[in-house]
């Protein structure tokens, strides 16, 4: 595993390796890298002096594909970036193209989108929690988290037939009406989930091993977050009360009450607390939304041929992992001239080096977990 002679591992602006420094290669095939991430760690004994990420193993040229597909044809591809939060990807893309077309989805579609997206946020956070805890040594939460996530995936499956890469939304609204017991299913899940969250809290929040492994580990303060572009729960855990759903509401978020949880230290424990609270808030949003889903059409005034007028748009949403943005340029044809995806995982991962300097090798695993990256989105 250790690879002491890998000279190219030194960043070009770094000085030559000191005699007592060691390069340790982690990944790309390592269970705790959450995919195919390779990290070259520069070590001084057990202490990490620097980390260089080697990424791109899952690069599929998503942005190039976009230029060679029609707007609709490209929609399913976005599900395959952050594949544990496919619905969020789809929401961002559909809304971006809708803005480019200057149309809006009907309110009923927006509300159903909001419910599904919030369920997706919970599902995404459950994957994060389960694997993050597993990485640190707590085996049980994984099973609990996947048990609840299964209920969400069942709702997705009932809604659109797919569980993971759902392609649930269409440009202009929805293809499918909510099924008959949709509200009931969501309500049942949400009612149950309150108790379930308490189970995770009982397992972890006061657990001294958990606290020992996460408190003051991977600290990133607010100024560094903003400088490095780290957003989402990472930014909020550093004390910045900012959420795109509030700052620039999209979908139907302006209709619902919810809180933006924040932390104080910006460490791994705070990020844990923030994401736990986000799940509770998402649950509340879902409960508010199912109370009154407006009647009406679910598809806006969008033709079968999507041909936006020449121009460009940038639209971003608060995905479970941070700001997910789409910059779309139209040349007036049926295919986008350029689609740029601002992937939260990619940009958040850049903070890894700063977050683990001075920590132990074992903490690297905790910090990769707390960044909540999905390599499908990092590499695109």
């Amino acid at each position: 595993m250790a690879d002491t002679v890998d000279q190219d591992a030194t960043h070009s602006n770094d000085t030559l390796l000191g005699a007592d420094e060691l390069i340790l290669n982690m990944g790309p095939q390592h269970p705790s890298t959450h995919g195919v991430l390779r990290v070259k760690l520069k070590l001084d004994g057990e202490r990490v002096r620097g980390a260089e990420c080697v990424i791109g193993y899952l690069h599929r040229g998503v942005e190039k594909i976009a230029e060679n597909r029609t707007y609709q044809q490209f929609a399913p591809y976005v599900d395959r970036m952050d594949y544990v939060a496919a619905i969020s990807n789809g929401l961002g893309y559909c809304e971006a193209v809708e803005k480019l077309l200057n149309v809006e989805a009907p309110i009923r579609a927006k509300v159903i989108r909001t419910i599904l997206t919030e369920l997706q946020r919970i599902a995404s956070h459950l994957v994060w929690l389960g694997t993050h805890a597993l990485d640190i040594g707590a085996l049980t939460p994984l099973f609990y988290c996947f048990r609840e996530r299964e209920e969400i995936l069942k709702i997705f499956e009932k809604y659109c037939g797919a569980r993971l890469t759902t392609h649930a939304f269409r440009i202009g609204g929805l293809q499918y009406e909510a099924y008959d017991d949709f509200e009931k299913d969501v309500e049942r899940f949400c009612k149950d989930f309150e108790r379930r969250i308490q189970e995770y809290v009982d397992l972890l929040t006061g657990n001294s091993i958990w606290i020992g492994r996460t408190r003051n580990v991977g600290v990133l303060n607010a100024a560094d977050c903003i400088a490095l572009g780290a957003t989402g729960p990472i930014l909020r855990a550093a004390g910045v009360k900012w959420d795109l759903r509030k700052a620039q509401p999209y979908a139907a978020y302006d209709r619902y009450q919810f809180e933006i949880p924040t932390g104080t230290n910006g460490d791994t424990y705070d990020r844990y607390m923030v994401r736990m609270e986000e799940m509770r808030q998402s649950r509340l949003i879902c409960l508010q939304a199912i109370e009154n889903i407006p009647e009406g059409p679910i598809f806006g005034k969008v033709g079968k041929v999507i041909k936006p007028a020449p121009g460009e748009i940038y639209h971003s949403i608060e995905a479970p992992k941070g700001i997910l943005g789409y910059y779309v340029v139209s040349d007036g044809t049926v295919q986008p001239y350029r689609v740029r995806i601002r992937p939260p995982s990619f940009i958040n991962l850049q903070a890894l080096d700063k977050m683990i300097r001075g920590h132990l090798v074992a903490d690297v695993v905790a910090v990769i977990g707390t960044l909540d990256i999905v390599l499908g989105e990092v590499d695109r």
Partner: protein
Amino acid sequence: MADESKPSQEPESTQAEPKGASPAPAPKSAPTPAAPPAPKPGAPSPKAPAPLQIPLDNDLVRRYRARFGAAILDALEDRKQHYLVVDSAQLPEIARYSREDEKFDLLEDYTAVDWPRRDKRFDLIAILYSFPNNIRLRLKIPIAANEHPSSLVDIWPTSDWLEREIFDMFGIEFAGHPGLKRILLPDGWQGHPLQKDYDILQQDTAWVRENLGIDSGQ
């Protein structure tokens, strides 16, 4: 400066061609860059809509113009979103001013668009967000193919990886970047895939053969 502002207008008129040349299934095989902009596929639509890009003149733009004068080549609004077209020579100063004086503290995204027929082949697109003011602004920086724009790593550290990705995908080299190398593609790869003349089925065959031991990755 009148002709300097042209690049910003041109996209709308030239951008139709690369795709119009070969629609749907056939991949856009390297469009002959010299071809005249003959057919206008955008035209067939019955009612030609009014241009969505309208000149922008608000306090923010006036402050930028007062400070940088001719380096602000254009200021436009497109679908309620604002952008400035700025001269690449003054990019670091404009970027620093944006962050420090106008409080655009987050470089939300940094990317490029290729316009192979234009004099200045690429547009760099910097999407700025201001936490204090909750507004976004796009900077559009036209650059020539052989130009080396200044790196923004000193101003927004997040542009480190973003500039590496632009280099990887478009071949644009940033002057002063601390470690400019490929990020998504392998180091030895030849070609920059998001350039418009890079076909979707194209690959670095030699690299694939040597490193993967197969004839084609397709």
